[in-house]
């Protein structure tokens, strides 16, 4: 290899792996052999069934089981992954039995790590693609099975179709051998192989055992024009269970001889208990035992009882005192830490182009300055954290609604002192995830309590208050922005400084403690540095705030606040230019062809909403566009401000490249937007005396039925690469809402939640 080429690749490798953090150690040590080697298939055939690959088993009785190894938390991923298999296998989706499957390296997620690459989504240069490729291969090397980053459809798109195509080829090959004909002459439909010449047919069940040993070549995937299932809306696979109250969630697990428990963990993160009235807790009717819990994620007590309510009452009776906080303990101190960070040196700048200082020193146009901020946020999944664990005869079994079953397996096994091979993780349905259920605390606490139950299983359920006060929060962030904007034109200089604690450092330290962390954390400026704008002098810098409050992935991660920062400031720049917000945005894109999907989405949404039409008194319309997780999303929000503010209507035009299930894609956009409105309107996590102030839904509100707007959604498919769905509706919601309120009232909202300054209608 030429020396020069090697050094270029080496530079990319180093930068990429350091940036990833979680992958930092392994990076340089693993070679190409590790990337090429396929992980072991975790599926073992039962009597009378055949395993075709890590995703498909077929039994003699005709049952076709598809492993969809991504957590079903409402995003409809089981339905879509199963549809991919069905498309290539020639089986009706409703004839498939769907399961989460065991944790396994074979279920690695490459697309999630590719999303961690630094280049903006529209940068498809050789270097950018090389970086994505390297990141993706780390997913395979690490065997990282996780659901997140809106990556599951993208990641599964080839894997699941190939699984279906390979199985179909094997089934045809088995039939061909039975009939003594060439497999190419055979046809498949509805789970049956047919010989059109002889009119013979055999079901997949009848062929399953033979097919397992059939040799097949590289599968050829069907072109999009031949799709019969993909590209069409499918009924949600688990809908019957979800309208009948079936016991499918972690909290519904019920086992023979099971105990019930809860935890009371220090609300000051990392602190130890100072005192607690253990006897009072033990005296609560139904409480069996009170034990100490000491884990990497928290310290406190576990209450073991014969029903969940008794455990809750026991926890309350503890009346525990906790040690002091080791971090800035209230909102003022937190703001102080963010301010200090933003005044200090930048830790990194993933966008750094032209000469910012020169642009600002001699502004040829209006100098626009603004400060924006967002608070910490909780996930508030409807199903509070819970998990069930049993430690019996040297074997640990966990039942949990988890986004990261492999990590749950290794961390809980290590905690219990059991080999990973002797640890079973059963992934059950998640009553909401949004990033929260990628953590290990809830199964870890269940494991901790199961070490005190003499082999009996125990389900450990958190109270809502415990859940709200022991989250891994979306971090607070502060932004300071400056720009130079000539009249009637796009900005020539844009500087965005963004201060926040590092999500990656927090997650890696807490959840992957064996892996060192280093390099830029992209999430701090994600959604600000990589948007479809072309600016001559452009710098977006990250300023790391030192705050040891646990933070984590929250639906759309950095985009959840940077979308607001970027688009909010965009509107302020537009006002300075004298152009309307839509025209200004289009002007900011220049003539770059790669940004065409953004232009198309903005123009489409403007047309749908009649954006330019005059507004009646009291009404306002706001527009925003955010590119996140590879999807382009433009949104117009219309508000009525004649009384308390009501969001009346929302229009969305979104382009994820390829849409596999249009109805579900629309549902995800609405869901993401409502999540974003909840954030913008009234959510905040405050700190006092080192602990979270909020307790429950009454002081951590979400949007209600009466507040929810009407939606009109158009899907565009111009983009060349496939983007995500689950998170992309969230980032544009807050800035479009702020813009609509400004449009109606002239009041600029720069700080979330907006209830700090305005009131929203309550029903």
């Amino acid at each position, binding site marked *: 290899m030429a020396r020069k080429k090697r050094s270029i690749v080496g530079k990319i490798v180093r930068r990429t792996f350091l940036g990833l953090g979680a992958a930092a150690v392994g990076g340089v040590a693993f070679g190409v052999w590790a990337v090429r080697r396929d992980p072991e298939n975790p599926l073992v055939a039962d009597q009378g069934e055949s395993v075709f690959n890590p995703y498909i088993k077929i039994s003699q009785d005709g049952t076709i089981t598809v492993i969809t190894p991504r957590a079903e938390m409402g995003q409809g991923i089981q339905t879509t992954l199963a549809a991919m298999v069905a498309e290539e296998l020639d089986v009706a989706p409703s004839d498939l039995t769907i399961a989460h499957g065991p944790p396994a390296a074979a279920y690695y997620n490459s697309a999630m790590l590719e999303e961690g690459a630094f280049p903006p989504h529209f940068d498809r240069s050789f270097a950018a693609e090389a970086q994505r490729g390297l990141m993706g291969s780390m997913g395979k090397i690490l065997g990282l099975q996780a659901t997140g980053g809106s990556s599951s459809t993208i990641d599964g798109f080839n894997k699941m179709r190939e699984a279906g195509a390979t199985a179909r080829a094997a089934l045809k090959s088995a039939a061909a051998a039975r009939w003594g004909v060439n497999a190419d002459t055979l046809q498949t439909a509805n789970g049956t192989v047919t010989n059109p010449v002889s009119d013979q047919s055999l079901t997949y069940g009848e062929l399953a055992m033979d097919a397992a040993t059939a040799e097949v070549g590289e599968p050829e995937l069907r072109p999009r024009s031949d799709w019969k299932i993909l590209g069409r809306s499918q009924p949600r696979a688990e809908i019957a269970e979800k309208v009948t109250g079936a016991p499918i969630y972690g909290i519904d697990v019920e086992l023979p001889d099971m105990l019930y428990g809860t935890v009371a963990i220090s609300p000051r993160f990392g602190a130890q208990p100072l005192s607690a009235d253990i006897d009072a807790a033990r005296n609560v009717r139904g409480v069996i035992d009170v034990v100490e819990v000491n884990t990497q994620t928290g310290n406190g007590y576990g209450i073991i009882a014969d029903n969940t309510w008794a455990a*809750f009452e026991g926890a309350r009776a503890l009346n525990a005192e906790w040690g002091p906080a080791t971090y800035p303990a209230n909102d003022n101190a937190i703001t102080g830490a963010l301010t200090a960070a933003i005044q200090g040196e930048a830790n990194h700048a993933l966008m750094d182009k032209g000469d910012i200082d020169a642009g600002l020193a001699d502004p040829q146009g209006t100098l626009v300055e603004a400060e924006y901020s967002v608070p910490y946020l909780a996930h508030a999944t409807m199903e509070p954290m819970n998990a069930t664990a049993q430690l019996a005869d040297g074997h640990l079994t966990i039942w949990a609604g988890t986004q990261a079953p492999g990590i749950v397996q290794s961390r809980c096994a290590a905690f219990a002192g059991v080999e990973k091979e002797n640890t079973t993780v059963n992934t059950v349905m998640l009553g909401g995830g949004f990033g929260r259920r990628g953590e290990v605390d809830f199964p870890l606490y269940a494991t901790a309590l199961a070490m005190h139950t003499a082999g009996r299983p125990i389900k450990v359920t958190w109270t809502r208050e415990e859940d709200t006060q022991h989250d891994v929060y979306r971090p607070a962030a502060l932004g300071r922005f400056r720009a130079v904007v000539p009249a009637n034109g796009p900005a020539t200089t844009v500087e965005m400084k963004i201060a926040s604690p590092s999500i990656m450092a927090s997650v890696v330290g807490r959840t992957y403690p064996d892996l060192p962390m280093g390099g830029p954390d992209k999430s701090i400026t994600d959604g600000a540095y990589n948007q479809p704008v072309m600016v001559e002098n452009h710098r977006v810098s990250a300023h790391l705030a030192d705050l040891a409050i646990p933070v984590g992935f929250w639906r759309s991660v950095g985009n959840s606040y940077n979308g607001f920062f970027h688009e909010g400031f965009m509107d302020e720049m537009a006002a300075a230019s004298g152009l309307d917000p839509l025209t200004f945005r289009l002007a900011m894109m220049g003539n770059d062809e790669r940004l065409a999907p953004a232009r198309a989405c903005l123009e489409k949404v403007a047309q749908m909403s009649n954006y330019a039409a005059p507004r009646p008194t009291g009404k306002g319309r706001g527009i925003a566009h955010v590119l996140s997780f590879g999807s382009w999303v433009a949104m117009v929000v219309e508000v009525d401000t004649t009384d308390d503010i009501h969001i009346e209507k929302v229009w969305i035009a979104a382009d994820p490249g390829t849409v596999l299930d249009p109805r579900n894609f629309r549902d995800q956009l*609405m869901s993401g937007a409502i*999540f974003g409105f909840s954030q913008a309107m009234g959510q905040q996590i405050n700190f006092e005396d080192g602990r979270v102030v909020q307790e429950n839904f009454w002081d951590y509100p979400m949007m209600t039925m009466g507040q929810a707007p009407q939606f009109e959604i158009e899907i565009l498919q111009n983009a060349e690469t496939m983007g995500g769905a689950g998170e992309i509706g969230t980032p544009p919601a807050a800035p479009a809402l702020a813009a609509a309120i400004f449009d109606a009232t002239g009041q600029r909202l720069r700080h979330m939640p907006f209830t700090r300054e305005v009131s929203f209608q309550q029903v």
Partner: protein
Amino acid sequence: MQLNVNGQNHQIDADPEMPLLWALRDLLNIKGPKFGCGVAACGACTVLLDGMPVRSCSLPVADAAGEITTIEGIALDGTLHRVQRAWIEHNVPQCGYCQSGQILAAVALLEETPQPTDQDIDFAMTNLCRCGTYPRIKAAIKTAAGMES
């Protein structure tokens, strides 16, 4: 103590202060009603008591005298309730965790107001949904009511 749930009588031995929700879930293994908040704020635990929607997380089991209907009890002879069928038609649930409560609140609304307006729905349906399925819930209620949605 005796509880009548979905037409069946159950004898239970519980602290009278125990919320109905936990008696149903942990003592009777009826898992349809879900635990969301414990303070009657979210409605995931909604059951019908003599046809009225109540938040079972905040109702002491001793006060649950009457006929209790949970999500498990609204289908008749294996045929789903028209509200459940409308939920399927509109693909309402996402994570689904709140939907037992949403469906029972909708059943009660339609008993009281067979042809609800948007405003009726907004006032009656105070159950929270973190996935934001509200637009489809509204459409499904109208379908169940035989109205255009």
